[in-house]
């Protein structure tokens, strides 16, 4: 999950903090970090996440934000 670039992207519920998801009464923001090698173009990855999450968002406007791209660590090293 992404953490936001300028302001931390997180939701606080009691003592619990969920990083990478910002829930407001109207909006739902999901922040992600995509990892190379990318299986599909970035918009497709973001759209597939949005399609999966939107039905569970309780009518909130759902947005997926790609915060960063990172190179996957080679596990054989």
């Amino acid at each position, binding site marked *: 999950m992404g953490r936001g*670039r*300028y302001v931390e992207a997180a939701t606080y519920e009691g003592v619990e903090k969920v990083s990478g998801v910002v829930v407001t009464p109207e909006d739902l923001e999901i922040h992600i970090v995509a990892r190379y090698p*990318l299986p*599909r*173009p*970035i*918009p*497709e990855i*973001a*759209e597939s996440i*949005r399609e999966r999450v*939107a039905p569970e968002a309780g009518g909130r*406007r*759902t*947005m*997926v*934000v*790609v*915060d*960063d*791209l990172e190179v996957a660590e080679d596990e054989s090293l």
Partner: protein
Amino acid sequence: MRVFNRIFVVLLLAGLFVLGVYLVVYAFDLFGYSLDSLPISDFSSGLEEFVTGVENSNLSVITVTILVLLAVVGLLWFIAELRPTAPRRVRMGNGTYVSRGVVEEEVATVAEQVSDVLGSSVNVRARRSPGALVDLEARVRRGENLETIKSGLQSTVREHLSGRGLPVSKLNVRLVEADPRQTKTRVQ
């Protein structure tokens, strides 16, 4: 505008605070200061002259110029306040966004892989509609064929970004001839 507004309001409030302190000091005759000692008579007579000039339509050219300038500044400020702020993220599709930093990194990475480019700096702006406005400044050696490098660089960056699916609405490439000793890369 938000930063400007904040600075302006802070300065305005600081000024009002200082004026308030002065007012208290002078109003209660503290530290030997009293309202009688204030040179208000000059100010009030000047104000009276100005108001009389306005009523008689008899203002000096300088005064009219200053008033017109104030009106223009006020109008420009008003328009600037009405303009919506630029979005922070690049819109890809309906409800999907990518941060400007991601686009900047991708553009810089692919630009610096081009053999003639010794270094680059990228500025990405977002728009309300899909696609980013990209300004790419690439540093190249002196004496190179700039047109060839520019067109090659443009097509390479566009191809790379479209492969990643990152939408670009405008790509401005500017080549700057630089000394290799002062660039990020000396030899490609």
